[in-house]
């Protein structure tokens, strides 16, 4: 883990959700919306196929910023906007830059991309600076 100073970048996080990730996440989270788990249904409502849960992608942003902060206790707030759609079997990458640090709290701006497109943007985390 690096230091959280204005302008510094957090360690990027990359993960490739496997083919059945959305099924496991549905069970773990309780969100069984068929657009995430049923290929035929997703296509019937005009999607390219099953899409990732937005809150799963947000959890990847949370993992990246808690790792930067040194643990789950460091994350005070996370605010995101969902844009576009994530799909299984394509790599997600979370990157972030510290915008400011004041009163022991770093504001980290993050983005989650897949195939070169942002699926989460304007993500802002408040992370307690340890030490």
């Amino acid at each position, binding site marked *: 883990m690096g230091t959280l100073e204005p302008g510094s970048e957090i360690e990027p996080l990359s*993960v490739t959700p496997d083919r059945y*990730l959305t099924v*496991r*996440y549905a*069970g*773990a*989270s*309780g*969100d069984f919306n068929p657009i995430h788990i049923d290929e035929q249904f997703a296509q019937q*409502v005009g999607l390219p196929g099953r899409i990732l849960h*937005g*809150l*799963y992608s*947000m*959890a*990847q942003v*949370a*993992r990246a910023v*808690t790792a930067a902060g040194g*643990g*789950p*206790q460091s*994350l*005070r*707030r*996370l*605010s*995101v*906007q*969902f844009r576009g759609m994530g799909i299984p079997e394509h790599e997600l990458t979370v990157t972030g830059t510290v915008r400011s640090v004041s009163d022991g709290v770093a504001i980290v701006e993050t983005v989650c991309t897949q195939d070169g497109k942002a699926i989460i943007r304007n993500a802002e985390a408040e992370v307690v600076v340890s030490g």
Partner: protein
Amino acid sequence: MAVNTAAIGKSYAPTTYAVGREKVREYARAVGETDPLHLDPEAARAAGYGDVVAPPMFAVVYAMPAVAAGMFDPEVGIDFARLVHAGQDFTWGPLVVAGDEIATTVCVKDVSERRGAGFFVFESVSENQRGETVCTGVWSNIVRGA
């Protein structure tokens, strides 16, 4: 589309969620958490917690049943076939640990219409058994126009 702004301010009876160790571990594995605080009770105890620690985003699990009460409320009138989750904001307090009981209250924060789309914003406030606010959530949804 017409939206019912009369629903603004409506709140729903609290729901209580009992946080179980295996549910925390199942969630942590599903999202790829590797921190032993979320997976190993011994590691969590060694760090001063009573049991495995829920990842912050586990708020989705304990708050969702309460949020669903609002989202499925006929007076709010969300058309799920056109629903898009537009944004999410969580603010956290003390960490949630397996064994905690979390009570969540939800209210309709805003309902509006812009350019033919409906905007529905819910706010959730989750407290543990000691009355500490562990998470406040703002859930923003768009229902696309016909």
